[in-house]
């Protein structure tokens, strides 16, 4: 195993006419980590994932997965041979039975693990003889997960994997993702469920309007990020908080809420020098996410 990033993008962009779905996206995903890919609906998460898989071609920039160029059709096949993918819609062939679809998928992957398949079949209680179109959405999601997990991929990419699952199944899924990470597989997943990301992710990438707005270790976010609420006296003008460590500033009347990723003491000292009332509170992922993706002033 090398130390090269498992995913690396440089200035990756995708434009649809006048709409820039993904803009100048540069990030790396390290091996052996669970990386949560966050963003609102339409932020560009699925477009990014589809570019990584060779389903959509970037209009600018480059990307590499496992060292292979995502824009080269031949190398893209190699990427798909070595990774696993669970799509957003979990669209599987409805005309095949569960057993047929497993046999069909297995035939493409020499690294298929029959013992994992057997265990997941038992855990998920999938009906082998039933047509895929006749099983519930939750069951389809489990089947899609089985097809991805019953191998030893170097990377698994999941687009909204918990969509359609009940709380127990979500818990099982998160556990399964942690298990496969422990087995050496890197996990890259997009999600709307911040609590899921907070529960298992090592690293968080946040995207908004196609741009990367945050790339940090979750532990760094929870330990170092702070909300600093600054309330200044009525006669004082609201200062600009253009200081190191300031990620976002939201001003409401005489109050400013500053999201700081570092330099908390410096920001607090600056605010106190203005005779302002200052309050520092820890943040969670939800607060940071909302701060990052809401329109800022």
């Amino acid at each position, binding site marked *: 195993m090398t130390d090269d990033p498992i995913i690396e993008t440089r200035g990756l962009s995708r434009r649809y006419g006048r709409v820039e779905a993904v803009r100048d996206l540069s990030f790396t995903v390290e091996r052996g980590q669970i990386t949560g890919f966050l963003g609102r609906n339409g932020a560009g998460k699925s477009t990014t994932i589809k570019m990584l*898989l060779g389903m959509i071609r970037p209009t600018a920039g480059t990307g590499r997965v496992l060292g292979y160029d995502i824009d080269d059709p031949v190398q893209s096949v190699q990427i798909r041979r070595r990774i696993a993918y669970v799509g957003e819609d979990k669209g599987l062939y409805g005309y095949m039975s569960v057993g047929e679809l497993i046999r069909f998928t297995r*035939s*493409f992957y020499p690294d298929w693990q029959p013992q994992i398949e057997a265990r997941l079949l038992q855990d998920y209680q999938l009906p082998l003889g039933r047509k895929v179109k006749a099983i519930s959405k939750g069951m389809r999601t489990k089947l899609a997960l089985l097809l991805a997990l019953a191998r030893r991929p170097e990377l698994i990419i999941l687009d909204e994997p918990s969509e359609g699952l009940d709380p127990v199944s979500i818990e099982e899924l998160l556990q399964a993702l942690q298990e496969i990470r422990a087995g050496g597989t890197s996990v890259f997943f997009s999600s709307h469920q911040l609590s899921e990301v907070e529960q298992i992710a090592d690293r968080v990438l946040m995207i908004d309007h196609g741009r990367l707005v945050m790339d940090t270790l979750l532990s760094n976010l929870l330990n170092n990020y702070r909300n600093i609420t600054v309330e200044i006296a009525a006669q004082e003008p609201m200062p600009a908080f253009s200081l190191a460590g300031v990620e976002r500033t939201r001003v409401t009347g005489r109050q400013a809420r500053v999201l700081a990723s570092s330099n908390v003491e410096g920001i607090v000292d600056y605010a106190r020098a203005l005779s302002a009332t200052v309050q520092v509170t820890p943040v969670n992922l939800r607060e940071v996410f909302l701060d990052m993706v809401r329109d800022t002033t």
Partner: protein
Amino acid sequence: MLWYKMWRESRIRFAIGAAALLWMCALVVALQQRVRARADEPLSYARYIWAAVYKANVLDLFILLVIVLGLGGVLQERAQGTAGFTLSLPVSRWRLVSARASMGLIQVALLALLPALLIPLLSPFFGEAYSFARALQFSALWAGCGMLVFAMAFFFSCVLPGAYSPAVASVAGLLAYSVLADLSWLARFPALDLFGTMHGAQLSVQAAPTLASFAAPLPWLALGLYAGIALGLIGAAGSVVARRDFS
């Protein structure tokens, strides 16, 4: 296993098509006495089969069935939500296209062969005989020309989104082709007359061939031309699919 996927996706269409074709052929053979008795002039059994099967009703059905077999593919899968799964498989898009095209062409050839299997077998039960070698000649014409019709539907299904637009475009394309083929400056090139080649009128007036010599009088130049155009269309379709974005 890609072949298996292609077979599973098309087998119902193929089975219904085969059943419809066999039923139509059987009906033509079964009703031969009644229809021939009402004919304006004496009609030999061989001529009757040519007129009812290879020139008219059953041929029209075959063309429609071939168009239906040409439909499908990754672009259509997008509407069903399965394109993401298919495109995430570790196979190139060219391989996906070539597997579907190969399966479709085999099915077209099998459909074309069905009348040749049924008509000679069924005719003795109605007091008639039909040459297997002759039937095989017409099957070869159907298979060769059907290849071009299939390729056209296949091309449109790779280019046009929607469930019905590729079928409509294929029918419109064939109608336009038939109008063009009637133009006097094109009529000088019989190899370009797809429907004329498919009818095999020149074969119907010849004496029944033997199995050993059935291939000799076939219009190989025209069939080769259609095969070339069909492969070109399939190649163009593959090129479109390989470059298309599937968002």
